[in-house]
């Protein structure tokens, strides 16, 4: 069984930890749904189905509503993502300065399209619309690190830093 499929089995989830997130940190409040989902995603890198089912019972919210929120907001992923998340900024300023070329080059390098993950789970490629570093475009963010004024030929060296 591969890593991704394993996550989908209820045993892979640490329910005690989920309780801490849902009860202690967010007081079982439905109003905090978005932030609870963010916390779960931070822990598992995506939103595993068993965790959502558990959350639904815990805060007495139909699964359909949780699914609605999870699919409406672009930060959430219902599929496992890579160990490193590359976000290419395609905001206007980066667009004008060639952000799309960077994105295209990464798609070609990994042979994946936007939103997909490499087969070895090393990278997930995403596009974002503006991370507010418009003066330094084109910008890419890998996990929490910003890389500014990127040239396509500098990509390989940058990516080598991430295992």
């Amino acid at each position, binding site marked *: 069984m591969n890593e991704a499929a394993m996550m989908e089995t209820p045993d892979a989830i640490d329910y005690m930890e989920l309780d801490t997130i849902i009860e202690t940190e967010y007081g079982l409040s439905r109003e905090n749904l978005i932030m609870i989902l963010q916390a779960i995603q931070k822990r598992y890198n995506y939103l595993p189905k068993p965790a959502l089912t558990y959350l639904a019972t815990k805060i007495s919210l139909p699964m359909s509503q949780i699914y*609605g929120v999870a699919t*409406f*907001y*672009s930060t959430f992923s219902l599929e496992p993502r890579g160990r490193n998340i590359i976000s290419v900024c395609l*905001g206007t*300023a980066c667009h004008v300065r060639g952000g799309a070329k960077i994105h295209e080059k990464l798609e070609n390098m990994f042979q994946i399209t936007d939103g997909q993950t490499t087969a070895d789970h090393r990278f997930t490629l995403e596009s974002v619309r*503006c991370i507010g570093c*418009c*003066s330094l*475009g084109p910008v890419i963010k890998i996990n929490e690190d910003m890389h500014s004024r990127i040239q396509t030929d500098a990509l390989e060296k940058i990516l080598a830093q991430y295992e």
Partner: protein
Amino acid sequence: MKIQSLEDLNAIRRTYAKQIYAPEGIRINIGMASCGIAAGARAALNRAQEAFRGNATIQIRQTGCIGFCEQEPLVEILAADKPRIMYKKIQEDKIVEVIEGYLAGDFKTHKKWILGQMKDPRSLLEDEIENPLAAIRPVDGIPFMEEAPFYSAQIKVAMRNCGYIDPDRIEEYFARKGYVAFLQALKKNNPQEIIETIKASGLRGRGGGGFPTGIKWATCAKHHGNRYIICNADEGDPGAYMDRSVLEGDPHSVIEGMLIAALGIGSSQGYIYVRNEYPLAVKRLVTAIKQAKSYGLLGENIAGTDFSFNINISTGAGAFVCGESTALMASLEGKVGRPRAKYVHTVEKGFRESPSNLNNVETYANVPAIMLKGADWYTSMGTARSKGTKVFSLVGKINNTGLVEVPMGISLRDIIFKIGGGIPKKKKFKAVQTGGPSGGCIPEQFLDLPVDFDELAKVGSIMGSGGMIVMDQDTCMVDLARYFVDFLKDESCGQCNPCREGLKQMLKILTDICQGNGKEGDIELLEEIGAMMQKFSLCGLGTSAPNPVLTSILYFRDEYEAHIQDKKCPAGVCKPLFHYEIDADACTGCGVCAKKCPQGAVSGEKKKAHSIDQGKCIKCGICYEGCKFDAIRIC
């Protein structure tokens, strides 16, 4: 310590004013907003800390963004009785050398790394207090920052502390007269007066709508129930980052603004809704709220009165539409962020069906300044119907990229050419896009237009949140319109037909035009769809979505026609619609293009005109950008 009175605050203020203006030893301010960090400020800070570890005379501090993003990382060094010097582009390899140079009193060796020196670092709130300038000794031969074109036309109200204080230290905010306005208002305990002052100041919503803030406050105060004070920090417009900058550089100005709003309107609970894409802003807000609580400026019975106020932070999850007030409130409730029709306004029934006052980050940041200096001072800046200052993010094809805060009424030309330093590489200005994806493109003939909510609306654009994207001759207006529509189509919540289907159809038509499949009647169809969306969409996203298309048709119809009729893209962006050729008369045969071409498509003998093999060319534009003799033509 809990602050009980203005005297308590003043005592702290004096101590820290010394630290930020005339420290013993030297103080190094490193611009550590997201943009600074991206440019390498963190590495520089670490290197400096390592090199001077254990040296008690050197304080190394992080500050927010002073606005000159093009020159980052920015490092400012100051000391009592010494000049206050701003160094530019200081990466980790330069920082130690720069500090040592300053310590030795040598301002010549690193002159090319100096941006300028500061004449007067005080904020405009401070002019009546004890003068800390006595300690500054300017040095000859270094230009003053205040006199540089980038700074001279600016007046910093909302951004008054960004770049001057450590945002993680509330005491430094106190030092620049922070929380004075709030404590004064608290002691006076006259909510009506607060609202009247804001009304009289003419402050209008800085998030884009431009609704008069005072009227909003007054209406909200009239409705009964648990009122909420909400701060919209869901800065979604690509190309606008002033809210991020204020939150990262001066979070307390926003908290103080919200406190004053809470006093005026009568509320005990506030929310700040921040974009998830701004992790540093969230971090700094969390710290700021904690510190304000520890001084008793947030929480129960503030400064010994019966006024209580708390602020919670809520993070968004990546939805542009959540910048719309009703969608934002739905999102705050943990729901899908879909707007609702505003038959009943949010000031009456908003968050949790209660009266809710929502303002933008920059609006709140203006409030303490207005309360301290008075409505008359604020109305002395600006035009008849747009008062005060506005922060713009000047980005795109412009020399001095950065954040600028200017009085309303200044002309677009002054912002772009005087402050912004014009277009790089001597290219020709084509248009400026204001207001983000909901705004419009303003062409050269309107550059003398004063910046004002109503004037911008007259030419089909909007002020919006203040993004200003400058475009030169190499930007294709059809492609840009397509880009915005593509963005908005992704971000439309899908609830109402005009927006959801209108954007989808517009994108299809625009994509066809960009690929050379445009047909007669497309322009008229775009205009028809646009007019329909403006009339019938549910929320502001839909009604303003056609703006980029409609304004670009209005001012650049010839470009659309060139795409459709001649199958040409005059700017050389839409790949199927142009090719590069080398002008044999202008080509000197220097060979740069042949060397740079990744496809090996350029060939020719040395010192003789080269040519491009169209079969091999992928139109990447590297040769076009690289040619120093303008010999490569877009055909």
